[in-house]
């Protein structure tokens, strides 16, 4: 699954963006399947906006984003949900867990959304164990710490098949040790699927073997 950006400029940030250099905005960029892509973005340059554009939940931009040669706008709702269940997964910066569900249920929701789950439930427990959140699985999403929520959101994103994983500051609330554990798990899962990822962050890091790095 190839993602092509062609002269994409967010409408609300237009003035600011056109005044400075960017590797992404207002450029033609192609993300090839399987690439590990890092997008370094100082605050206020539209990092979260970009992830939302790539995941197609925000549309206020000029230019176009094409997936497999077809603009996002040309996919209908059913096709979009199929893509989000099978081809593209996401870790939002604001995590977006359901407070009314337990941590485990938040993960399960994603796992069983596809009637033929990609992983059995044991995988959830295994990943939770690896990221050190087993003890909070039964807790309500509302009572978790940011760090715990972040790890639950990562596990949730890994419960489905994907060709691209979008991550918006996925380790922002984790200490280095936990961030490394999470990064290792993500890298393994991407390799297992032959999938690529797009990770946005504020700084440089060496947690992944990035194929390419961009400055937003």
């Amino acid at each position, binding site marked *: 699954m190839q993602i092509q950006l062609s002269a994409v400029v967010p409408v609300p940030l237009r003035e600011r963006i056109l005044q400075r250099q960017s590797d992404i905005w207002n450029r033609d960029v192609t993300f090839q399947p399987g690439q590990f892509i890092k997008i370094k973005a100082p605050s206020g340059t539209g990092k979260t906006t970009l992830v939302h554009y790539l*995941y197609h*939940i925000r549309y206020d931009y000029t230019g176009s984003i094409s997936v497999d040669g077809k603009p996002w706008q040309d996919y209908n*709702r*059913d096709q979009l*949900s*199929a*893509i*989000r*269940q099978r081809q593209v997964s996401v870790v939002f910066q604001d995590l*977006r867990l*359901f407070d*009314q*569900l337990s941590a485990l*249920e938040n993960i*399960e*929701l*994603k796992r*069983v*959304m596809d*009637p033929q789950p990609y992983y059995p*439930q044991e995988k959830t427990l295994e990943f939770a164990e690896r990221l050190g959140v087993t003890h909070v699985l039964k807790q309500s999403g509302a009572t978790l710490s940011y760090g715990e929520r972040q790890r639950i959101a990562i596990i949730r994103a890994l419960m*489905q098949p994907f060709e691209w994983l979008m991550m918006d500051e996925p380790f922002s609330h984790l200490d280095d040790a936990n961030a490394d554990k999470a990064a290792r798990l993500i890298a393994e899962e991407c390799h297992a699927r032959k999938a690529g990822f797009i990770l946005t962050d504020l700084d440089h890091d060496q947690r992944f073997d990035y194929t390419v790095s961009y400055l937003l």
Partner: protein
Amino acid sequence: MQFNEILKKIIHTGVGRGRFWMASIGLGIAMLLILVALQVHTNFNELLYGSRNQNERADYLVVNKKITNDMMGKPELTVFKPEELKDIAAQPFVEDFSIITAAQYNVRLEADQLGFSTLAFFESVPDSFIDVQSTDWKWQEGQQIVPIIVPRDFTNMFNFGFALGNNMPQFSEETIKTLSPGIVVSQGMRTGRFLGRIVGFSDRISTVLVPQSFMDWANNIYSTGAAKAPSRIIVKTKDPSSTVLTNYLEEHKYVTDEEKTKYSKIRGIVQIIVSAVGFFGLVLLMFALLVFSMFIQLVIESYRNEIRLLITLGASPGQLQRYLLKQFIPMYLVTGVVAFVAITGLQWWASGLLAKRNMFVSEWPGIMSLVATVAILALVYAVNWFAVRKHIAEHT
């Protein structure tokens, strides 16, 4: 864990559950009203036309034109023209019909035993239209005795009106049958004498009847020449209370025994009531559907953030639609089944009640009621489906 089980924790359809219950009860009542209307209609038809309720005989109506002030003195206006007879014969409610042949000669009855004589008249109809069974009801040329059928009303008038008021003896029907009044048939100079024999009393035709064979013979011998057009006819109909029949008579200014057609009025009233009940049911159904749609909108609106997030995470609109519909549909099904069971019970009860009065309707609801139940449920499902789809689409 199933996806829908998790959804249940996110989207509680308990919001405004009270309203949903009210709408369900409304739906139940609406269905019941519609089914009752249909069932009453079916039963009424069965009572009227069903083979088990068929009266032993069809009904006979004597029909003539209404004599108005304008028509007085113009007997040619009161006769039926050939095209009018043809039109009557073509009506669906007419099973058989015949003209009533009037005598074209003068008749005088002389009862020597009682010491009176009176001017009279004869009419005749084919035997199949006569309600009196008598082996004496026949006449052939040369026969001196002419059988006569008189209306039962005549004997009643005589016995209870005339005789009592004039200090005369009352006569039983048997006694009257033994009388043999002399009959004098005449036209100008030609005269014929016969002996009359009353062989029966008719409740059906209010006239003095002689056999058709006698009438034809006498009309031939004693007429003035020109055949008289018929002014009364007798119609055999299966359904004297048919509104089609009464409307036809009214339209053509024909009159008949209103006692026999009075049920058409009752029938009209029943039809209006049934229609009103059915209409009310339909209105109620529409309101129930409206409330359902609003309830669905309320549920989806109150969970719009959750629905947006679910869609963002990849849940398909179809998955959410199916989940939401699953929360409502069982209630509709139960409502439909309860309404149908209720109508089945009512029908069974009504059929028992009617059977005691020798009116027979099916113990089971008609196929129409079943079809209506399924149709209403399908409609409710469709409306819900559209509502869910529309409101979910607003958030995707």
